[in-house]
């Protein structure tokens, strides 16, 4: 089972890369207490029959691993969203592509922690099957709003192939500087607030 929200993102976007997509888009939009995500691809898509069964952890098309009886990516995600009163929706059409829209209620006790978005974005951008791939990150809270965009084609134009350690570390530096810039708008929720040390509590 995945621990952080970024694990779910990593897992689910890979599905799009593996579906023969030429364009994949990941939107990660954050408010005070919600994380709204969209993964959209123009890959091979799924028919109604597969769409119905794909949230069943014991369903797989068996193409990737011939003897395997499970397919856990989407079931894990929908379960995690459900557990924290988030949302989950899947739209797919054969030959057109698939869109997965889901959200986490960050204020809910069972919401997974956000995790390391920067490392996740770097790994996704470097995925060998990712061709056209754009990450749109936006944040909009009472503290203000910010956004940035990571476009694989653009980044490869600057850095060359995203394969070697040196290049990936440069990419990480770049992505981290973008995320740092929007981090000022994060709102820490009461739920996640650490209790003040005992000495402080007594003062209060």
């Amino acid at each position, binding site marked *: *089972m*995945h*621990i952080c929200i*970024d*694990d779910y993102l*990593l*897992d689910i976007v*890979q599905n799009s890369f*593996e579906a023969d997509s030429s364009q994949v888009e990941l939107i990660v939009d954050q408010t005070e207490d919600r994380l709204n995500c969209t993964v959209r691809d123009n890959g091979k898509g799924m028919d109604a029959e597969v769409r119905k069964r794909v949230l069943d952890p014991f369903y797989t098309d068996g193409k*990737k*691993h011939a003897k395997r009886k499970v397919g*856990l*990516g989407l079931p*894990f995600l929908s379960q995690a969203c459900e557990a924290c009163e988030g949302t989950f929706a899947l739209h797919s059409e054969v030959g057109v592509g698939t869109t997965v829209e889901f959200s986490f209620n960050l204020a809910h006790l069972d919401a997974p922690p956000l995790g*390391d978005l920067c*490392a*996740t974005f*770097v*790994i996704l951008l*470097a*995925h*060998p099957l990712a061709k056209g791939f754009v990450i749109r990150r936006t944040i909009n809270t009472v503290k203000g709003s910010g956004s*940035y965009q990571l476009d694989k084609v*653009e*980044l490869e134009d*600057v*850095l*060359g192939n995203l*394969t*070697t*350690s*040196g*290049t*990936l*570390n*440069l990419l*990480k*530096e*770049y992505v*981290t*500087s*973008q995320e*740092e*810039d929007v981090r000022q708008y994060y709102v820490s929720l009461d739920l996640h607030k650490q209790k003040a040390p005992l000495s402080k509590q007594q003062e209060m």
Partner: protein
Amino acid sequence: MAKMTLEELRRLRDQKQSELQKRDIEGKDSRIVVGMGTCGIAAGAKTVLDTFLQVLDEKKIENVSVTQTGCMGLCYVEPTIEVIVPGMPDVIYGKVDAATARKIVEQHIIGKQLVTDHMFDRPAADIIKKNGGK
């Protein structure tokens, strides 16, 4: 850190590349492939890949190719990674955490010795020697 522009990123890359040309290239043609299937992710493959990048950066090794693949079929010992170093047998390591990732860079990539206690597939047992295959 100020928000970096693409132009700044390009300059940084050009600067790094000219530094690179002056140095002997360590790690050239070496490859680390991280199993990034659902099983790998659940076991911490993301942290492992990130640790590899960090350690390689610390050691100033710029030329190791770090890529990802799906599940390698060894879900019971995830996170699994494959290491390919010219002149050495291809190895799949399992149960790799951050500490092991560091050890693999130092011992296998740099030291050219196998990390025998984490090997789970290839090469066959008879070629794993006590001295780490040297």
